[in-house]
């Protein structure tokens, strides 16, 4: 044991390289990333794979998968291609997920950083604000915002982002509270750096690991929320999304269950992949875990 430790200390490669090596040995991360890459590729090449509007009625309604070679995954009650719908739905899901997570991250990080770094009454005010948002169920808040505005993809993404920042804010605040007393922060202050400079230049890079991990969960939750909205017919009516496909297939649940099962599987796989990535990153980035 001790010889292994000293050997690894003697030839200590660069941190980034060591992390990459640890990442490639982490099964959760590898599986999660593979699924995610597949989904992203399908989303990117949706228009190449399935030219034309996925909302077009192209075939006989309610064809089962494999029944006709032209529609490998069948058609829905209106004769729309399920495979095309899944591909275009991936676009909406990933886009809404990413944008919503980005917005949530931006607001959450800023509020958490300011609250944690300055403390005192600023902290008090911001924590109350965070708690105010947390007491309202995310989904209800999103529905309220979407009903006030028009149900378009950008509005939905913003709404989900606005409803999801408290988690990030609490996490970042905790990180900053721990790090603001660190010696290197005192050193930075002794060098005459300004507070914004210390917050973003010195402390934030040290708080990155848990933030990155949370981001993957944030994206997953945003995808689920968007699917839920679309299922309730509150999604963007001009776009096919996984949630709206499930909603459309619901009346035929007994005769053509694949109409709900296929998009459902897509959602489950993507969310699972994102959670796997989050878990894997947690292991790799966390210096206290054996993988790091």
């Amino acid at each position: 044991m001790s010889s292994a430790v000293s050997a690894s200390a003697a030839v200590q490669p660069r941190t980034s390289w060591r992390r990459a090596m640890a990442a490639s040995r982490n099964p959760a991360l590898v599986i999660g990333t593979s699924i995610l890459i597949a989904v992203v590729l399908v989303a990117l090449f949706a228009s190449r794979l399935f030219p034309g509007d996925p909302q077009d009625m192209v075939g006989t309604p309610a064809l089962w998968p494999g029944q006709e070679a032209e529609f490998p995954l069948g058609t829905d009650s209106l004769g729309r291609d399920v495979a095309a719908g899944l591909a275009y739905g991936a676009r909406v899901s990933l886009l809404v997920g990413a944008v919503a997570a980005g917005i949530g991250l931006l607001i959450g990080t800023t509020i958490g950083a300011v609250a944690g770094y300055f403390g005192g009454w600023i902290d008090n005010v911001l924590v109350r604000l965070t708690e105010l948002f947390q007491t309202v169920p995310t989904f209800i808040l999103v529905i309220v915002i979407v009903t006030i505005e028009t149900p378009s993809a950008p509005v939905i993404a913003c709404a989900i982002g606005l409803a999801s920042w408290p988690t990030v804010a609490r996490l970042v605040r905790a990180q900053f509270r721990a790090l603001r007393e660190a010696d290197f922060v005192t050193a930075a202050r002794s060098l005459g750096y300004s507070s914004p400079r210390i917050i973003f230049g010195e402390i934030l890079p040290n708080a990155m690991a848990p933030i990155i991990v949370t981001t993957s969960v944030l994206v997953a939750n945003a995808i689920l929320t968007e699917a839920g909205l679309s299922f309730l017919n509150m999604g963007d009516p001009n776009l096919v999304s996984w949630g709206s496909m499930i909603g459309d297939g619901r009346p035929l649940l007994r005769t053509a269950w694949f109409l709900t099962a296929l998009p459902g599987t897509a959602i489950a796989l993507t969310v699972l992949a994102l959670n796997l990535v989050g878990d894997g990153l947690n292991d790799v980035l966390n210096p206290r875990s054996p993988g790091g």
Partner: protein
Amino acid sequence: MHDLAIGFGATTAVHGIDFHIDEGETLALVGESGCGKSVTALALMRLLPPAARILRGRVMFGGTDLLELGARALRDVRGKRIGMVLQEPMTSLNPVLTVGSQVAEVLRRHEGLSRAAAMSRAAELLDLVGIPEPGQRVHDYPHNFSGGMRQRVMIAMAVACQPQLIIADEPTTALDVTIQAQVLDLLDGLRRQFGMAVLLITHDVGVVAQWADRVAVMYAGRIVEEAEVRPFFRQPLHPYARGLLGASVEGSGAHYTQTRLHEISGSVASAAGEPGCPFAPRCPEMIPACHDAMPPLESASAERRVACIRVPANGEVRRVAAVG
């Protein structure tokens, strides 16, 4: 620095201390743990933790009172005109940024250098503080450096803008003894080279003897003796200072001794205390009058001041029986 008092909540940690540092000289602030040395150093830069407050006093630096300065002006002084080296080299560097970028950042902040210019200057500074292959090392992270090397990097950052004063808060406490001498030599060499003043905070009397010009001994938040180094080591006046020297082998120039080292009996009295000299309960020469009032820091001769009721002010320095 004049009559500086620092309090934590209701208690007072530093009771009106008063000292000065001349250009280009090294003043050592000595005392045992918890006597207020580090708090004093942080107060000079107004870096005290939120719980601590400066109760009164002034910190005059080249004609300006640092305690009165606005936030922006203060940041211009920090790092540019006063550099600081902290105690813990292992945690004082940001672990996720390269060493070079951390040194370069100081130059970009205070000298307005471009990224490239700052990086090449950073490499020069690393060279100056004796880091081998500075051209490559600038791209390394702090965990690639040993404690001594990190402290060299900290010194490079502190002297980057050639400040007039370096505050070194126990810069070598966390280091190996052999590295300790190297780091202090480096600091001393840079001081001569740039004509900086150094406030060296330490609890190591040997360090004082070797590297300081003058010494101020602190006890329980007060300065009890201030003197030039030579006369101080020849004959410390305050009983606490004598005890401190008696507890160290290095004052005599030897590195080991056969005889038993003297120890100061008791433990450090709480700074928040009763009236009278705070050292009185541990003092071998205590007289009843010691408990009445804290003796003021008075001139004992031209260059030294001492706060002890048994050392007559301005008079002939009385021979006191050797301790131990």
